[in-house]
């Protein structure tokens, strides 16, 4: 990159830094983001700053398109006069936000870059390695199951055109032996680092839909980030009111129970899970607990603290507690935790007031690189 564009680019980044936080924040806060995820792809916005001009309002404007469809059908793209990168250099009016599809890995990298998240220190369990195949190339020999149909067809077409056999009126292409192309793979050797996230959520009556939505969005991002760090990431889900039970992901986000709250029940179950399935010598363990901070009694809070000290903290990378503000909760629990674990780096607490606070909360949780 030359000096000139470098300067212009860094000034742009400078402008965006002031701006991008809001941009990204707004975008993360939108629950629809997860809904858009299909085939492991989500749309991410690339920041664009629009210079205001006298322009037509969007909605009255409309345009002209081409293709099938009846009057009243929706139009595929938002705007038909989309500009493509090709062709003459011109002045294209920039669109406000360019949405591109990226993989979750890339998304995690972008998140990491924007939030300046450190890469996670592995707990030193690099002894086990595993080979992973990646299909990256093409070769002339291989098993039929890996035949690359399109490439093979193209070779055959090319050959038949070149040898004059091709007849446009009867375009039948018969692949011959030499036309065949196969996918080939490369073996990547990677250290295996096993990791498990144990999500715990308070589903007592005081946790409303909005609170659960916040938990859902936040855990999506935590998932995305940790998945980038560890190849084999497992997730377990525990819900609790006065009693705790393990559920699947779907139930986790949908259940709504009434009744009291005994947080210790969840911590007990969490500790059991670790005992049974995740020996701490082989696993990186991340318990995340979300609640509105309204525990049943001080006694129960004390037993929670005891459980953490004795059973959980010794075996996990970190213990994260996120407190979602709700109109009913007292919010006492986070204060108790902070009182008892003020010195302990392994316990991370965060208060999430509303959707806009999700980004800073993620940064609090993951900013330490544990």
């Amino acid at each position, binding site marked *: 990159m*030359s000096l000139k564009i470098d300067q212009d680019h860094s000034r742009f980044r*400078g402008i965006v830094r002031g701006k991008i936080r809001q941009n990204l924040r707004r975008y993360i806060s939108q629950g629809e983001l997860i809904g858009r995820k299909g085939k492991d792809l989500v749309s991410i916005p*690339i920041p664009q700053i629009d210079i205001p001009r006298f322009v037509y309002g969007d909605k009255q404007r409309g345009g002209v398109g081409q293709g099938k469809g009846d009057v009243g059908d929706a139009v595929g793209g938002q705007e038909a006069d989309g500009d493509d990168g090709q062709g003459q250099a011109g002045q294209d009016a920039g669109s406000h936000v360019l949405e591109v599809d990226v993989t979750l890995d890339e998304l995690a990298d972008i998140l990491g870059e924007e939030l300046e998240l450190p890469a996670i220190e592995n707990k030193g369990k690099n002894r086990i390695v595993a080979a992973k195949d990646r299909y990256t190339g093409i070769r002339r020999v291989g098993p039929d199951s890996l035949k690359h149909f399109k490439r093979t067809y193209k070779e055959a077409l090319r050959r038949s055109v070149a040898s004059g056999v091709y007849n446009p009126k009867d375009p039948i292409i018969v692949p011959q032996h030499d036309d065949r192309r196969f996918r080939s793979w490369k073996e990547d050797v990677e250290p295996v680092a096993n990791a498990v996230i144990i999500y715990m959520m308070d589903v007592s009556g005081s946790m409303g839909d909005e609170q659960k939505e916040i938990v859902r969005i936040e855990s999506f991002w935590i998932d995305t980030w940790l998945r980038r760090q560890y190849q084999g990431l497992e997730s377990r889900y525990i819900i609790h009111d006065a009693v705790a039970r393990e559920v699947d992901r779907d139930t986790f986000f949908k259940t709504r129970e009434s009744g009291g709250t005994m947080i210790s029940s969840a911590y007990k179950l969490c500790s059991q899970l670790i005992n049974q399935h995740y020996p701490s010598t082989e696993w990186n363990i991340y318990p995340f607990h979300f609640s509105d901070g309204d525990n049943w009694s001080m006694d129960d809070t004390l037993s929670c603290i005891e459980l953490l000290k004795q059973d959980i903290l010794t075996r996990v990378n970190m213990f994260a507690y996120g407190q979602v503000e709700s109109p009913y909760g007292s919010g006492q629990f986070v204060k108790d935790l902070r009182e008892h674990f003020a010195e302990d780096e392994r316990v991370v607490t965060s208060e999430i007031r509303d959707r806009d606070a999700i980004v800073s909360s993620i940064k609090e949780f993951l900013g330490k690189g544990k």
Partner: protein
Amino acid sequence: MALSPNQADLPRYLLVEQEKIEAVGRRYGLDFFPVVFQMLSYDQMNEIAAYGGFPNRYPHWRFGMEYERLSKSYEYGLSKIYEMVINNNPSYAYLLEGNSLTDQKLVMCHVLGHVDFFKNNFSFRSTDLDAGEPITDPVRRRGSDYDPNRRWIDKMANHGAAVRRIVDRYGIGRVEQFIDTCLSLENLVDPWSRFVRRRREEKVEEEPTAVEVPRLKSKDYMEEFINPEEYIEEQRKKIEEARDKKKGRHPASREQDVLLFLIENAPLERWERAILSIVRDEAYYFAPQMETKVMNEGWASYWHSKLMTSEVCDWSDIVDYAENNAGVMVTSGGRLNPYKLGVELFRSIEERWNRGQFGPEWEDCNDLDQKKHWDLRLGLGQQKIFEVRALYNDVTFIDEFLTEDFALEHKLFSFGWSNRNERFEIDSREFKTVKERLLGQLTNFGNPFIYVEDSNFENRGELLLLHDHRGVDLRSDYANETLTALERIWRRPVNLSTLADGKKVFLKYDGKEHSSRAEAP
């Protein structure tokens, strides 16, 4: 990055191809400026593309923004720029390193079409730096030795140097902010001023002269019937009124070139005026390209396809060529692809003029069967498309050659926002509607018509702009922001008269706050 104007860095095998392609192009009648191809890596390509094709421009963050967009799109595998060519004499074109030979040949053919277009289309005559002002007869045939000065690459670099000098003196922050202000007003230009003498030297009238009412020619004895006295008197009053109204008005008549008006009349510091002039010059440089996007891409695509499939491709290229060409021509998601629209229109013109499907006999014929087999074997197609590429721009091109049959065959539709379903929907397939919408979109480059109406509005030195409302409201938050920029330059309150939801409104910014009111006081 230093760009040298020689071709030494183009590999030999590509130089050979270029020579071959240019020879074939000439044989087909293409007439182009010399073309200088440069081979670039993808990040060099992204950089130059971010600068609008020029290796050297003034510093501004938006180029950095564009660079980021292009390089991210490239890294995420969404798009890459195959080719780029700038309107310059000689024309500079860029090839992407690592493309296959087939792709490079395709790009060279495509570029040749563009450069022929730059040289011959009348719109681009306004970018001749040695033309003098303005070109009132762009159609006039030029001699075969037409070799205008279009050293825009140098001019842009000079702009860059000038702005850098200003930056050294006043600091990047201040200068960049002012450039932002200018860019807000960048689209307030008059596309036709390039071809019309807008301002006539008005005679300074010391004393009011008697008003001469033009009379219709008549024989003496018919005079009082053809030019009745009352009518003449009425006209005289009208003219006098108009003259009184004009008196003391500034500008004397509406000005669409708001930028020029500001350069001439706003209380700017020297460096500010220099920057505003640069922004205006560059806006006019890019105007022909925006004005002919469909034609220009269509013409280039017509020629890459013709040259590639007739002589340039060898057997080993043709499949890859076809695949790439299909990628460029694709219309998906209901989008109108300017490459496709342009090339199909040129082909339709060629066919119609080859078969003689034009003129009154053709228009008046209502026999579908006869029309279908209409072939006078005139063979005028090639001649016609060369003529069209010289004398039309997108608006006139589509107005004249986009026929109902064409719209039907290519399944054109118009779409609009549906409030009920909150999405864009197809609202018509009616030829008239579709064509009107398309032409409306292209008119004035899709910009609203804004004029300087009065520079002494309400006798308080305020500026009044007028939006000539043609059915679509302005985007109001942007309009207010733009007024802020305008006030920064005019240094007095600025007003804009427009319509919103069918009602007349005056938007005003006085340097402190925005206001809007229904009527002028």
